[in-house]
């Protein structure tokens, strides 16, 4: 499905819910990445899912 992308203004206000640190927008994987928390929050149909238990861990042993 075609991803509508995220409103850039929304990206300006969003941070990692856990660390309140910055997020990097990974357009390719449709994720918002918090390096500090080691978590990547998914974006589904243009909607950032800012929930810790829905985030992917950046442990390195992932696909």
């Amino acid at each position, binding site marked *: 499905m075609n991803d509508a992308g995220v*409103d850039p203004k929304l990206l300006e*206000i*969003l*941070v*990692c819910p856990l660390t*309140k640190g910055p997020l990097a927008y990974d357009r390719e994987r449709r994720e918002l990445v918090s390096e500090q928390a080691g978590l990547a929050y998914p974006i589904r149909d243009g*909607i950032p899912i*800012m929930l*810790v238990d829905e985030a992917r861990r950046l442990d390195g042993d992932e696909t």
Partner: protein
Amino acid sequence: MSESQAPFDRRAVRLHRARAAARATEASEGLFREVGLRLLDRLDDITRRFPVAVELGARDGALREGLAGRNGVAFLAQADLSESFARRCRGPRFVADEDLPPLGPHSVDLVVSNLALHWVNDLPGCLSQIRRSLRPDGLFLAALLGDKTLNELRTVLADAEIAATGGLSPRLSPMVDVRDAGALLQRAGFALPVVDVDRIDVSYRDPLALMRDLRGMGETNAVAARPRRMARRDVLLAAAALYAERHGDGEGRVPATFDVLFLTAWSPHGSQQRPLRPGGGQVSLAKVLGDGR
């Protein structure tokens, strides 16, 4: 806060909200609509403009229509704990846990929340996170259910359960009272906190209709220590009978009281009124009061 100490089971809250999202109708959203209008009324009393606004716990996003453009709101992002509710919001939206708002420091001018924060586990923590997300002189405007909410139901459920089982389990959530709310806002670092209460009485066809409606609203029990089974059917029926007997209007209809706390509080800014520092007075008190003779 460890899982065992947390008062609410947030997974249950999320589940209830998702269920509500699937079934939301104008009728089940009625209380939220009414309180939403009252929140907008409070904004009308304020002249300041808020270019960037966020609504936490936006449900189906109905408040957008009233909020966008009001008080100079140029950008409004709406968030809900439930993805299915967030999908129903039009315009910028995200999914977020109200316990952990993902908002950057000093990033927004206005945070609005309509009857969502009574389910958070750490209200003081939530409030100070909101305060930190506000720009100086930014506004936090929220409605939450106060401790007198559904008092009728709380009492009859307790009485019926004690009569049937000799024991009591938490069926309704604990809620905050006016004085606590004011103190919490102050502790969270807000300036000029104001809390006022509106009592909203809703009339139901009968007590069971009320219970069904609460489920439709996604507002049923999510207390972590709640019993995992539904209340026994005979207990529910006994409670319904007690409810009708004590509060009925003679034709079977019953009222339910929702005690809604409206919170307004500001992120501190030099232009706001403040008390003088102790010792900063220019006129001696003795002079004002006379010398006591």
